């Protein structure tokens, strides 16, 4: 119902109702925008200055059997999880109710599909971590950056599973996140963040949201950037690519100090 009110009126109502602590303001008003800024600027910076480092850094050459199961399990799982987040966070509850999907029906399917996707992702990443630790060549090719990335990624996934279980009532009383977390999430994008909604949300959702934001903050600086090179254009382009021998930027001169922009095709 809150979302239906005019923004200004709602802001007033909220201000009179809820007393937000400094922590709440920082976490639910400030951090999301910091995250977005770091993520967007970071991605642009990485693309302009480190396209050479923009790669999956595959370890398939070292080990084939485990990765053949674990990697698709994880990746398809996480894509399904992503779809779940898109639907759950972006589509208002009123819309699904308007087309006749009741709250209980929605959650039944969300939990059912979410369970499959979550299980695939979780099993996938656990297998991948086991592989990374136990297969010698893979372990020795693991950088510190990778380890930090795994920590953030696995953390966000595990906390997401906990939040889902909490929401579904397996842990605790159950909670309809589409009435607070989702509304807060959308409010960020029309620049009227409703921190009070998150402040009132269950702890599991709060922690997962913070972990998620932390993941997006480190994202541009890890190998996770490869998610943004999904080769969509491949299905549309001709098979054989021709390119002229164009001039390159760097070359017959000393490189400048600092980061140099990458010459594009």
């Amino acid at each position, binding site marked *: 119902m809150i979302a239906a009110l005019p923004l200004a009126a709602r802001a007033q109502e909220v201000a009179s109702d809820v007393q937000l602590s400094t922590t709440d303001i920082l976490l639910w008003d400030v951090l999301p925008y910091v995250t977005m800024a770091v993520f967007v600027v970071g991605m642009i910076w990485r693309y302009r200055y480190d396209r*050479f480092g923009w790669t999956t850094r595959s370890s398939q050459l070292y080990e084939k059997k485990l990765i053949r199961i674990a990697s698709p399990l*994880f990746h398809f799982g996480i894509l399904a999880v992503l779809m779940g987040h898109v639907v759950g966070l972006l589509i208002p509850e009123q819309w699904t109710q308007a087309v006749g999907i009741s709250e209980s029906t929605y959650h039944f399917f969300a939990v059912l599909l979410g369970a499959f996707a979550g299980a695939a992702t979780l099993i996938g990443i656990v297998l991948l971590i086991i592989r990374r630790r136990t297969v010698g060549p893979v372990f020795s090719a693991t950088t510190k950056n990778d380890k930090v990335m795994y920590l953030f990624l696995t953390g966000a996934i595990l906390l997401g599973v906990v939040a889902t279980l909490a929401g579904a009532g397996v842990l605790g009383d159950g909670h309809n996140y589409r009435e607070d977390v989702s509304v807060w999430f959308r409010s960020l994008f029309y620049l009227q963040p409703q921190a009070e909604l998150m402040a009132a949300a269950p702890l599991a959702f709060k922690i997962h949201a913070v972990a998620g934001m932390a993941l997006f903050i480190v994202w541009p600086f890890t190998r996770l950037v490869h998610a943004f090179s999904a080769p969509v254009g491949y299905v549309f*382009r001709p098979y054989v690519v021709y*390119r002229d021998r164009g001039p390159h930027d760097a070359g017959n001169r000393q490189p400048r100090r600092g980061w140099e922009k990458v010459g594009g095709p």
Partner: protein
Amino acid sequence: MKVMAQMGMVMNLDKCIGCHTCSVTCKQAWTNRAGVEYVWFNNVETRPGQGYPRTYQDQGKWKGGWVRTQRGKLKLRSGSRWHRLTTIFTNPVLPELKDYYEPWTYDYDNLISAPLGEHTPVARPKSLITGKPMKIEWSANWDDDLSGGPELAVDDPVIKKIKNEVGDRVKMEFEQAFMFYLPRICEHCLNPACVAACPSGAMYKRSEDGIVLVDQDACRGWRMCVTGCPYKKVYFNHRTGKAEKCTLCYPRIEVGLPTVCSETCVGRLRYIGLFLYDADRVTEAAATENEQDLYEAQLDLILDPNDPEVAKQAQRDGIPMDWINAARKSPVYALAKKYKVALPLHPEYRTMPMVWYIPPLSPVVDALRETGNDAEDAGNLFGALNALRIPIEYLAELFTAGDVVPVKHSLGILAAMRSFMRDSNLGKPTDASIPAAVGLTEEEMYSLYRLLAIAKYDDRYVIPEAHSETARDLEELACSLDYDGGAGMYEQGPFGESSGRPAPVAVETFHALAHRQGTDTIVDASDEDAKVNLLNWDGRGVPLGMPTMPPKTAEPDSAGDRAAASTPGRPDDATRSGGAS
């Protein structure tokens, strides 16, 4: 008709002695870095044998190249675009490191740090991948010269194929008769399957000279190209996570120098030159229904640069006149199209490969000599070519999808040349019927002899420089491997090798090298253009920092204007320069 230029290579297998100089110099130039220890842009494999990576020719297993669909369209053997995108998270048919070999070093430290003991300490092999001690069981050229060995040859995919067709008898005769070397680089195909397989569009064929390259900034490490290439000549750098492949030494080619593998070839068996081809018909030719017609289809694509129509169209399509002239003098055109002695490697992969091979006549000659006959008599040789089915069938599997006619034609010309020129060299009257038997005139025979047997440097390599109108761009052109950890990173920084800033690898360096190789005078060490250092030192003159002898006569440099006052090797001259190029 759209005319495009393609830099091509021909290798005369009769001359290959299997010395691996090409592989070693290529390795030193391009892949002596971490992450590509196992990578050989150029390798020489013994045939019959399994090749590198092992059994790469077995496309049932490795899924390289193209297939023709029922509807007559071309499709990558590894699947349709959509199918391959669904397998993007793991490539189902990527060769593992063990299919190449696990690179290693030795624990040299043990030699000096081992405690005093009864036995001399040894340096044990240590894997470069895991860092742990390892047992060496396979390596590059582990099976060198072991082709007849029953443990190895049985797994040669080509032998397996012939065996199915002709039976076990083949193998025995084959082992007695036959061994040769097959040097391989990237084929720089007209219809490259690796380029077609790359989801990121990072691999491309250069429109000027047809060299297939990987854009290191655009590669995202999906590894589809490794599977796509039926020759397995695209490699995955496991440190950088990017694909790398033979570049046909494009920085050298652009200034008219042959590739490193060609330049250093002891047997002088490599030829480099231009093909002009009709780019509009490539897909159609590659989709030719019958595999054995692919060789002819490929030949049909190649246009005659002496045809005025072709030359006119070539100019309209932006090919500069000096390139058209170079195409007219091209040794690869002569060998592949005019004389038809050079054949493509595995045309049945439908990639239209542009490195061609002159099949080896020596196994036939050797077999003939062992029977006590005159192995260089034309009649005997022609007879032997028809009688010795086994080597020819093997060669046909390699070069013409199993069609023995082109192989016999090629070997026939080589046999005729051998016989005809023996008479000529011994001062006997030459027999005009010998060239006629293979459809050549005496004049053509002499010209082929000059190209194949005399093989002068300038005849073997007819490489036009990247065109002058674009020369300004060229000056700015960087070597694409001068990234961190790349081949261009050999300069010393303050903290040892590959620290500090990357040294620019510029085309100018190669121009200087080309100039030095072409000049007859001793190069002046003080000459800034010469920039002598040991990395590009070719044995002429004196590299910087070496004590030098004063010249006997004060000869002006052929280049004239910059020569007059300099005395080579003065210490003050030698100490300056040597900085960045």
